[in-house]
Structures are given as C-alpha cells and as structure tokens.
C-alpha cells in the first residue's frame, strides 16, 4: 500500500503514532518477554567478574593495603588499588574531589579501596575478604548542623556551597509571622536494576569500551578517560539496558574500576552491585534541616519568607553544588513572595555521599514551605487551599531570585484540578484498606481520616549558567528514518517520544533510534532535571524538521515547482496544486537526507554570590497534590488512601506514559512521606537492603487521580515540558499534611514514623 516512488501522488495518511498518542513503548515487547538486555545481562565468553573492596568505616586512615593474599587465590586475575590509577586519581560531577580508590583516608562507609577481577563471583568474594586493609579508625563527622565548623572531612573543607538570597526589603515584617523547623531524612533512589555493566578492552590500541547503565554517557566518558589517562575518544561509553535511575546514575560508580580491571587483565570485566552494595555505592537524596519564618498580611498575602537550609552532602561533593542552588531558589514555593531572606548551605560529613535524586533540592524545601503555608492558614483561620490560591505564582511574577517567571505557570489550575476530584468514600473493611494492612492491627474506632494539600515547583533543565546542550542526528533514506541521540533511556520513555516526534514530522513509523553511544554523536546531557523531552526531544524535532525541509526542496526540484509552493505539515508534503501529496518520508527515493545539530536552551546566568539574584532558570514545572490518609492514631500506622494531582505538563506527547511518570513519582513521594529512609548510626548505614529500606508495595500505593494541565510551553517540542520530577515535589508534603490533619500533631520530619504519631 505504500508507494515510495518519487513523485507519487498517492495520498496516504501518516500512521496514528505521532505526538499526542498513547503509543506503546518500542522496547516493551522485549521487556515483557524477558529478552530486553539490561546492563547486568551482558555476557562475554572470556569475561571475568569484577568486585569492589570497600571501607567498613565512615572515617579512618589507611595504614596499609596488602593484596598479595587475594592474588594468591586460584581464579583471581587482578587486584587494583589507587597505585594502579594512571590518570586523575579523583573524579566527580562538578568538582573532582572523590578518589577512584581511597589512598590515605576513607571518608564514608563503602568508599572503594580496591577492586578485584576473578573467574566467578564467589571467587571475587573470597578475594575481597583476603585483601588485607589495615585501618586506623578516626572519629567521624556526622552532624549536619555542626559540620561546617567541625574538623575538615576533606581538603576542600566542610562547606561545599553557601547560597544566600536577598530579595526585596529584607527587613519587611508581616502582620502575622509563623515559624517552623523541618527535617527530611535520607531517601534512596532504589532503582530496581543494580549498578552494572561491562568493560571491554579493545585489541591493540589501548582504547576501551564500557557498556553501562547510566544517565549521562558523555560526562561518564570524560571522567573515566581522565582517570584512565586516556584521550576522550579512546573511551567509548555505550548505554546498556538501564533498570531505572532517578538521579543515582548521574555519578560514576564502578566505571573506572571495571575499566582498570579490564586493562590489567586484557579481558572483558563485568561488574554488578548486589543490593547491599548498591545502597552504599551511589549517592542519595540530601537529608535536610530547614528553619522557616513566614510573614503575611492579615488577609493572607505573603510578605516575606525567611529560611535557613542545611543539606548534608556526605563525604563527597557530587552534585551538591547544584542541589543547594535549587533548594535556595525554590525555598519559598510557587508563590508571589515580595521579600525573601534565604541562607542555604550544603556541608560535608562522613555520612554517605548525597547527590541527585528526582526533585533535586526542591523536594526538601517543598516539605518545609508547604508545612509553613498550612501553619499560616491555621494562624489566619483560612482554608489551606484559599491561601495557596491567593498567593499562587503567575506568569510575569518575579521569583525570589529576581528573575521574571516568563514561562507557562498554571499554578492556580494545578491547585484547582487536584482539589476538584470528589473525596474518596470511607474505606471498606478489607484488611488492605486499613492502616496496618496485613498485620490486621487496625481498630476502626482509632482510625482517623485526614486530607492534606501541597503545591510545588522547580526548574527544568540545567540552570545557573551550566552548559546545557544536546545533539541529534536524523537520517532519511528510502522511507527509513534513523535517529542518533545520546540521551540515556532509563525507563522514562524517551525512546517512545522520539519516534512519535519523527512520525509527526516525517510521516512514517519506520523509525530506528540507535543505541546511545559516545562513539556516534555528541552529548545529550543528563537524563535528569526533567530535561530530556524538553531538550533532546527538541533536538530530535529540529533534526527531523531539517530533514523535512531538505525533502521539501527536493520535491520542488523534482517536480519543477517553486519551493514556496511545497508545504510540509503533519508528516505530509504537498504541492499547492495537489499534484504531490505524500508522506514526507516516502517522497523521494534513493536519496539520503541527513541533518545533525546541537541544541541549547536560552542562556542562563549564575546567581549573584552575595544576593542570590540572577536569571538562572530556563523553564519551570508545577504540580499540586491532595492526599487523603487513614491513620490509626493509637498505633501510628498510616494508609494513604488517595492522591489526586493537577500537573503542568506543557503538552502531553504520550498521555499514557505521562500518567505512568506521574504515578511513579507519586509513589516515591508517598514512600518518602511514610516509610523510606536510609538510617545511619555514626556514619554507618543500618538498613542497606530491601528488607529494611522499605519501598511502597502495591498494597501501600494509594489510588491516584490525575488531571494533566496542558498549556503549551514555548521552547519545548510541540509545547511539551518535562514531567519526571514534578510528581515527587508536593506529594510528600501533601501526605504529611494529611497525617497532620488526621492526628493534630505537628509532624515536622519525614518520613513520619509510627512512633512519631503514636508517641507524639
């Protein structure tokens, strides 16, 4: 039925798989069949297994390392330590402060000290025990509030960054003032597919290929190449099937270790973290301590927000610099705030390193500012919804950084949408509808219902002048579209929407997206900051449009019509006289059309170091959440019954998968509200397992009702904004507010534990 001959006049409609449709994931069939290759499914007949030897102490001097007993074990092929790192001994996302292997001191429990390659994972484990590391244990710095003045954890000092914001009249005083101190525990990304991949040394030339589950291939490549002392082109990073990320794969983990072992043995080396190691082997969400003072007029208008924020960055900087910037910039929430005094800092301790996680600094402060808005509403005897609507940000308002909010800002619409759903009925008697669930603890007489509300916002894409670019290439040849882009697919659905974009521009679903690789194209930037649809989606769109333009010109030439008489729209090319009306991709045979480009968003600027003022953001994303909970107030057990949301998405390119993102983000927000926390005890992680780090199960997940607020955003492909982080911002504070409403308790810390309620 498809006529691909040049100059065809056959009228064919493009397939209904373009943007706006809930198209199936292209990798879904392989994933349900079990044939999708994840990073730990990689195999090679000459492969060795690698494993990492880690510090059991959060703070210690290394007296000696003796690898000889491990090397003596049959089957052990190599043991490498800091002596074997040929290039930079340190790496890191923003500052290079983290050793590939600790040499003189260890600064957190789980810090890599050595790595081993052997013929079997069990041989690795024997070798790990056999490596003799003598430590002299030192007192760890673990308290975030005193860390800034404690003994230095690192030569770079204990304050990674301070961000002051001074906006408007810093001495302004409101008619009414409410204060509160809030804390957030350390959340883990807890992706399902542990860190894994394989390093394969190339024959002869010293270069190396690393297949790895990651969020940002080119950044990995640069860091790995520097540590290996290789030219960047001599390290090729290829995306391996990635089992979730949520921020935890933005930092390098085993990458350099695997490459070193591969180089030393001249064999492919596969590494995969076990779950306990994964908990120690990646960064977490920063724990936060926040003190707020909100000033308002008697009629509920915000006058000033004062806020002191301290984030615990753990032993190494990772992305703490940027997380702290976010915490400061979004500290006042999505409200009209004429005056603000914010002091945010991120400190270094001997706790586990913290870095990127979904929501990136904005999650912590959202818990604080939303608790404050409820407190303010209570003090003014206002409805929590009313006070939020009264102060809601709108396009054209000035943020506390002084920047004009010039993007789409449907804060009011989000709030109204979340509130518009009817409240759920009283729960039934089934044990799984009751707080306590399977434990059958609930007494209906002790169960109280609570409803809570929260609103959140953050930026999308990189801010503060960070270079934020992405590359895409589109090739069209005989009806087949091939796309290159190094954006890491981590589960979010980029692979789906780029095909939809190609369908909508070139009219065909014969689209192949090549595996992301540093060998084939420039950086796409990180799969983080809700930026890949907005950024790389836009790059792919532009590349496809350039190809369509080439086709348009070719049609004009082939049919001898003026180019302006050929139009391209919705994947179809037409001449004005109707002689030609074809799918763009099928218009011209036997010619290769190709376009490659680099896409950047508008320029952003650093924050002023004294005042925190500056046009530092590109675009903003908003959501509101309403949570309904049932609480057994005597036992402190919580059943989150329902979460409703209105979320600003720009335009939903794939509504079903936007819903999937939102539901997933809410589940992480619910987890943070009532169960998820990495518990440390003097720097030691007490619960590095799914036995004790609890994620919500299907039984714990509330019903979710969603309204997508669609207002096209300029700069996004087809008006789309990022959607990944927004659901994680205000879902946690909404649940916390609902638990407060049910219990009458202040509950200033999340996750809320049963004892906080029962003994509160």
């Amino acid at each position: 039925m498809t006529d691909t001959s040049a100059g065809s006049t056959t009228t064919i409609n493009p397939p209904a798989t373009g943007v706006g449709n809930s198209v199936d994931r292209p990798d879904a069939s392989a994933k349900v069949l079990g044939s999708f290759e994840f990073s730990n499914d990689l195999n090679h007949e000459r492969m060795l297994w690698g494993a990492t030897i880690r510090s059991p102490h959060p703070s210690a001097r290394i007296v000696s390392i003796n690898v000889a007993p491990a090397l003596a074990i049959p089957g052990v092929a190599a043991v490498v330590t800091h002596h074997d790192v040929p290039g930079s001994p340190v790496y890191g996302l923003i500052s290079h402060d983290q050793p590939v292997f600790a040499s003189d001191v260890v600064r957190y429990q789980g810090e890599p000290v050595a790595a081993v390659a052997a013929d079997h994972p069990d041989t690795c484990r024997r070798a790990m025990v056999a490596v003799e590391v003598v430590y002299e244990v030192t007192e760890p710095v673990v308290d975030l509030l005193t860390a800034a003045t404690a003994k230095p954890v690192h030569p770079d000092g204990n304050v990674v960054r301070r961000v002051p914001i001074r906006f408007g009249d810093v001495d302004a005083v409101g008619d009414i003032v409410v204060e509160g101190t809030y804390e957030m525990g350390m959340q883990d990304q807890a992706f399902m597919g542990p860190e894994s991949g394989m390093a394969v040394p190339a024959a002869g030339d010293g270069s190396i290929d690393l297949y790895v589950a990651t969020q940002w291939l080119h950044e990995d490549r640069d860091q790995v190449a520097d540590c290996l002392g290789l030219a960047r082109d001599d390290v090729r990073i290829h995306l391996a099937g990635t089992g979730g990320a949520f921020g935890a794969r933005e930092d390098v983990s085993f990458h350099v270790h695997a490459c070193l072992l591969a180089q030393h043995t001249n064999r492919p080396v596969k590494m995969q973290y076990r779950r306990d190691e994964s908990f120690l082997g990646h960064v977490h969400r920063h724990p936060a301590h926040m003190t707020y003072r909100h000033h308002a007029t008697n009629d509920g208008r915000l006058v000033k927000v004062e806020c002191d924020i301290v984030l615990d960055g753990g032993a190494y900087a990772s992305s703490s610099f940027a997380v702290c910037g976010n915490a400061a910039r979004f500290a006042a929430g999505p409200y009209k705030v004429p005056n603000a005094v914010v002091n945010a800092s991120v400190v270094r301790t001997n706790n586990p390193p913290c870095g990127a996680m979904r929501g990136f600094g904005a999650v912590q402060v959202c818990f604080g500012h939303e608790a404050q808005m409820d407190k303010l509403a209570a003090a003014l005897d206002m409805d929590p919804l009313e006070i939020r609507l009264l102060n809601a940000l709108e396009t054209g308002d000035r943020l506390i950084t002084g920047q004009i909010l010039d993007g789409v800002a449907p804060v009011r619409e989000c709030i109204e949408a979340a509130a518009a759903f009817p409240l759920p009925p009283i729960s039934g008697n089934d044990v799984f509808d009751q707080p306590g669930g399977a434990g059958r603890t609930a007494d209906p007489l002790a169960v109280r219902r609570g409803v809570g509300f929260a609103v959140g916002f953050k930026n999308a894409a990189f801010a503060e002048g960070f270079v934020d670019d992405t590359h895409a290439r589109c090739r069209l040849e005989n009806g087949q579209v091939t796309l290159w882009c190094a954006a890491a697919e981590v589960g979010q659905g980029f692979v789906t929407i780029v095909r939809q974009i190609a369908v909508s521009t070139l009219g065909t679903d014969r689209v192949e997206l090549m595996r992301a690789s540093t060998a084939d194209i420039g950086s796409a930037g990180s799969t983080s900051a809700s930026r890949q649809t907005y950024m790389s989606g836009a790059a792919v769109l532009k590349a496809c449009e350039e190809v369509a333009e080439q086709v348009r010109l070719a049609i004009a030439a082939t049919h001898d019509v003026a180019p302006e008489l050929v139009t391209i729209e919705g994947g179809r090319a037409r001449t004005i006289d109707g002689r030609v009306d074809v799918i763009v991709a099928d218009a011209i045979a036997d010619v290769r059309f190709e376009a490659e480009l680099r896409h950047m968003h508008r320029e952003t600027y650093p924050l002023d170091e004294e005042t925190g003022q500056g046009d530092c953001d590109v675009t903003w994303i908003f959501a509101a959440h309403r949570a309904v909970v049932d609480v057994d107030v005597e036992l402190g057990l919580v059943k989150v019954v329902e979460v409703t949301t209105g979320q600003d998405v720009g335009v939903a390119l794939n509504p079903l998968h936007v819903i999937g993102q939102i539901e997933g983000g809410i589940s992480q927000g619910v987890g943070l509200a009532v169960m998820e926390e990495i518990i440390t005890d003097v720097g030691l992680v007490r619960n590095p397992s799914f036995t004790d780090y609890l994620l919500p199960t299907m039984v714990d997940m509330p019903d979710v009702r969603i309204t997508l607020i669609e207002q096209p955003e300029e700069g996004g492909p087809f008006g789309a904004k990022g959607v990944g982080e927004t659901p994680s911002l205000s879902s946690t504070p909404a649940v916390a507010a609902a638990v407060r409403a049910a219990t009458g308790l202040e509950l200033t810390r999340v996750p809320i534990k049963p004892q906080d309620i029962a003994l509160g």
Partner: protein
Amino acid sequence: MTVSMPSSVDETLRLLSDDPAATILAGGTDAMVEINYEHRRPASVVSLRRVNELATWSIDGGTVRLGATVPYVEIMNSELAAASPGLAQASRTVGSSQIRNTGTVGGNLATGSPAGDTIPVLAALDAIVEIASVRGIREVAVVDLIVGVKRTVLEPDELIVAIRFPVASGPQEFLKIGPRNAMVISVASCALVINQAERSVACALGSVSPAPLRCGDAEEFAAANIDWTSDGIRITDPRTLETFGSMVADAASPIDDHRSTAAYRKHGIAVMARRALTRATTS
C-alpha cells in the same frame, strides 16, 4: 561443596548424623539469603525438597500435627486455617506470596528469629516440637526450643519433623505491626489464644524479646476477668482490657534498633494486646 536430596526422614537423619555440620535447606527463605550474602558458606547442604512426609499435616482428635515443611500458604488456605486461625493469620503476614509459597513453620522455628511471625502463635498454643535424630525423637516446647536471638537447643544432627498443638477451642488473634502494609518484618507482634473449654488465656509476643515470650501474669488476669459462658466469652468492665494491655506490655523487654524504638514497641504491644482481647471477647 555437596548437596544431598534425601527422600525420607530416616535418610535425612543418617545424612545429618554423618555430617552434622550440613546446612538443612527447607523453604530456603532464610538459608539462601545467608548463602547469597555469604553469611553462611556451607560445605554441605541437605535439601528437604523430596522428603514428602515432612510436608504433610493431620488433625487427629483435638490435635493438629503440622509437618515441618508445610508451607505457610497451605496453613492459610486449607482446613488448618479453621483449626488454627491464629497461625493462619500469622502465616498471612509472612513476606510475599513467593515467601509464603515456600517458607515453612519448621524453618521459622529453626531460624529462631525474634521476628519470626509464627513463633508467638505457637508459643501461645503451647506447641510441642518433634525433633528427630538417629538417636531418636525428643519433644520440646516452642518456648524451650528458642533460647536467644537465632539460638535454639537443636543439636547439629537434629531435624524438626513436626509441630503439634491443639485445635482451636475459642478465639485466636494475631496482630503484627510493621511500617509497611504488607511484606514487612515485624516491629512487634502479639498472639492471643483463648481456650474456652479450659477457660484459659494465652498471650505471646514477637520482636520484643530475644526468645519467645509468654505473658503469664496478664494471662491469669484475663482468665480471671473473663465472663466465661457457654455461648461465648465477654468482658464486662472495659478497664479490664486496658489493664490487660498494660500487663502484657510490662512483660515485653524490647530494644531500640533501626526498625523501631523500645518505647514504641512497648506501646504497640499494649495496644495490640488490648485490641486482641477486645476482638476475642466481642466477636
């Protein structure tokens, strides 16, 4: 390393006699975690998969005899559930479907964790554990089997073959607190078994002591304050329920750990015990 797969109890006992250091593998839900995480590196494993006689149960007169490797799922979904509603409820709180499909009461006892979900119910039932070796069979009460955190009186060559306890003759309750609504290790649990025929009350606790814990004073108090009638049991004075809860909590000796605090555990025990007795005396 060796793996043996005997097909009878006798064969199993001979293997254990020859190699007392062998790891006994029943459902694997504890032992395999230890092997996967190299907390245990056995030189030999004796799998009970083919020892069918261990996976059977019977109800004879007023006594249930539960083979050691009957999985939790069968306790929940067979006549055993009516014969022992408390044990069925405890079984339902164990792990996930997968764990309940394979995990066994014999394994729960042999591991002897303070958080073992079925242990409080068995303790309240005065369950007797049949322990076999080539030297013969001995019987030990559940409360005497487990003597500390994951410490039992089992000799290395011994095998738990069955657990015996009376068929329910009155209400039974099992309540368990966990910070997640399914698939969670117990923060504290409470089993209540009321024997109407004998006019006795038994209460045992989980996760609040190193070894199984009965609450003798509270049990006697409850038995003395229950209005025992032929058509059911009642408690007329609501203060009795409150006092019972407090007395049960007094028996607990919980600790602070990463899962909870001692104070909360004690509080939770008082609430659960009160609710358990309330349910038992109002249904």
